[in-house]
């Protein structure tokens, strides 16, 4: 059966090309001088430089985490370029955006200008660390929503950034979060004032461009009391031979009765069939349900990166707050993923749901790692977890590492897990009804992922369905 399966999975990466834009680049390597260079380049206030330096000094004392179920050569942190940006330009409209950049988006199938207008989506484009264009800002401004790059937020709303940055993921939280806190270059900032429902989906397309430039995004989303927002993050990257490190930090803060929905479709270059190249994606994403009845929902479709190390989590501090994690992680060839979530129940009657679907093909390895922790004061807390794995072919691996810590005897925690395999009998069943193997696999996979896709905004769901089909082309047979 492997030939058809193999052909399906072995589709070359379609987004592999490099855009040539003159970069203003920091010297290779990391030191306090590099950090001062970044901070100076960005005209940052003193407190932020202090934040960075403190994080850096802490990072120097930390060991690289060894517990994930992934293998990779040692990263030389002195061989990374920590800052590169297109030449600064003042852009009043989309017409002034570098045509080269626009062509890149065209190739990616993201005609930003049309897409943003047609879909009613405001796109804050991150292109090699600096925001190039922000659309729909005026419309959002009318309802008091701030949606801009984090650099602009530091300049225009320093009190908000200072109040919330590092409040969910402290600078010294973990090795990669500390590194990010020291050297982050740009990212998105979103602030929804009290009682405002964001009138459109907010979306960011990320793209890593300059070869060997580490990309350290910092995203901060704050929903004040009764506010709600749905945020979309989509990623693609060009093809390179040397590995690119990506260590982002995303912080979400939901106050009383606020609701944040964060959706990701990730399709970074995963390396070639033999595991050469590809992105190392070591990301810290965490949401804090600070207020009562607050609600944070993570939905992710992870299909790219050579290595994924990522646990979007919820800290359920407010009473009756709700955390959700819906995930599809697909690995193929030599990809390795160690991903999952943490649900930390602190407040009373807090609830969390975890639905994880792992799909492994080729020689890849896919691990779910999740923590459900019920604190001593979390009376009546409830969690439901479901972790399903699907194997395609016989050379891949799937693991589930659920950690459950319950310190309150009124809590109720449920965990279900299953492993299935797309076998020749299932495929033959489709074939015997006239349906070819590629369509069969796509139908089985979409059925398997249905519970997660239903959580995605509609356009994203369509994209995700196509993406999985594309990623698995050639893998079944």
């Amino acid at each position: 059966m492997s030939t058809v399966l193999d052909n399906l999975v072995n589709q070359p990466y379609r987004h592999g090309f490099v855009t040539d834009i003159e970069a203003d680049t920091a010297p290779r390597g990391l030191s306090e001088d590099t950090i001062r260079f970044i901070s100076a380049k960005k005209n940052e206030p003193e407190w932020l430089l202090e934040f960075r330096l403190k994080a850096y000094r802490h990072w120097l004392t930390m060991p690289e985490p060894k517990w994930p179920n992934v293998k990779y050569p040692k990263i030389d942190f002195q061989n990374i370029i920590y800052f590169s940006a297109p030449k600064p330009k003042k852009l009043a409209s989309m017409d002034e955006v570098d045509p080269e950049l626009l062509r890149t988006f065209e190739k990616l199938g993201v005609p930003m200008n049309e897409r943003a207008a047609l879909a009613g989506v405001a796109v804050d484009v991150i292109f090699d660390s600096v925001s190039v264009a922000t659309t729909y800002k005026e419309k959002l401004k009318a309802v008091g929503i701030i949606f801009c790059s984090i650099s602009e937020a530091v300049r225009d709303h320093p009190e908000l950034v200072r109040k919330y940055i590092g409040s969910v993921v402290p600078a010294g939280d973990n090795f990669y979060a500390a590194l990010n806190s020291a050297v982050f270059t740009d990212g998105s900032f979103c602030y929804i004032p009290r009682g405002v429902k964001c009138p459109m989906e907010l979306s960011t397309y990320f793209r890593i461009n300059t070869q060997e430039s580490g990309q350290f995004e910092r995203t901060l989303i704050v929903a004040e009391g009764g506010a709600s927002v749905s945020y979309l993050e989509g990623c693609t990257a060009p093809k390179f031979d040397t590995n690119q490190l990506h260590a982002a930090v995303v912080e979400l803060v939901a106050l009383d009765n606020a609701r944040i929905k964060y959706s990701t479709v990730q399709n970074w270059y995963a390396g070639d069939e033999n595991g050469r190249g590809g992105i190392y994606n070591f990301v810290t994403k965490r949401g804090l349900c600070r207020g009562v009845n607050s609600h944070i929902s993570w939905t992710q479709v992870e299909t790219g990166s050579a290595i994924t190390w990522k646990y979007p989590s919820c800290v359920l501090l407010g009473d009756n707050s709700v955390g959700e994690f819906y995930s599809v992680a697909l690995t193929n060839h030599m990809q390795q993923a160690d991903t999952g979530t943490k649900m930390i129940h602190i407040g009373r009657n807090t609830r969390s749901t975890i639905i994880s679907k792992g799909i492994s093909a080729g020689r890849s390895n896919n691990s779910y790692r999740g923590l459900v922790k019920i604190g001593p004061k979390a009376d009546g807390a409830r969690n439901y977890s479901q972790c399903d794995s699907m194997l395609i072919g016989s050379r891949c691996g799937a693991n589930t590492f659920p950690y459950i810590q319950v310190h309150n005897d009124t809590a109720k925690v449920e965990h279900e897990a299953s492993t299935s395999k797309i076998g020749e009998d299932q495929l033959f069943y489709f074939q015997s009804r006239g349906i070819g193997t590629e369509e069969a696999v796509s139908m089985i996979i979409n059925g398997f992922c249905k519970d997660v896709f239903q959580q995605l905004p509609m356009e994203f769901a369509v994209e995700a369905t196509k993406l999985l089909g594309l990623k698995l082309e050639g893998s079944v047979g």
Partner: protein
Amino acid sequence: MIDKDAKFLLEVRGLSATVAGVEILKGIDLTVRAGEIHAIMGPNGSGKSTFAKALAGHPAYTVTSGEVRYQGRDLFSMAAEERARAGLFLGFQYPVEIPGVSNSSFLRLAYNTVQGARGKDELDPLEFDDYIKEKMRLLEIPPGFIDRSVNDGFSGGEKKRNEILQMAILEPRLAILDETDSGLDIDALRVVANGVNHLLTPENACVLVTHYQRLLNYIVPDYVHVMEGGRIIKTGDKALALVLESRGYDWVIDEHRAKGEEAATA
């Protein structure tokens, strides 16, 4: 219905096949003309299911010798899905479960694929809904059936009904039903038989692989074949099924052996 002038749908000549290196089929000959109903009976392990799956193109079975022509074409040059698109249908003894894929979308994709191959128009979801409702009414299948995942959590009887529903929808030229009757209660058996009888026209044919005579009370075969040791060792008419029911298979096997010894000593 036997019509000696009818077109050949299936011509099997000296078919041998192995599974995991073990020879299961050892030279099968069988001719099926349009309009005919054939029953293949025989003890467990005689190769009946292997024969059915090998014809449909299951990848676990390797054809080692012999030839099969389906509507004049070399069957083994066609991929499994091409055979299905050309009107060959296998009703499974153990239909697989496909969680998460709704029966209606599965059936519609199958129908539209086969229709496309026949150069006919595909149906959109609403048109297909009308089409399938009519078929379901004929087969006494409750409406909620198609909203469930394919065979997922179905009882044995429901799975078999689903096979017959698929057959009714795809309208095959040649239906091979692998022990579709086993595990069915008498009402379900009647429904399944109705489905098969409904399908039959002078252009179509059906091969029933079965353990028991009782299905043949509802679907009257033109030929009854006895399979043993990977060969068809006896062929008769519907009366043979009744004899097999009362006397078992041993006498046929003994008779076949005796003939073989005669031939060897002659």
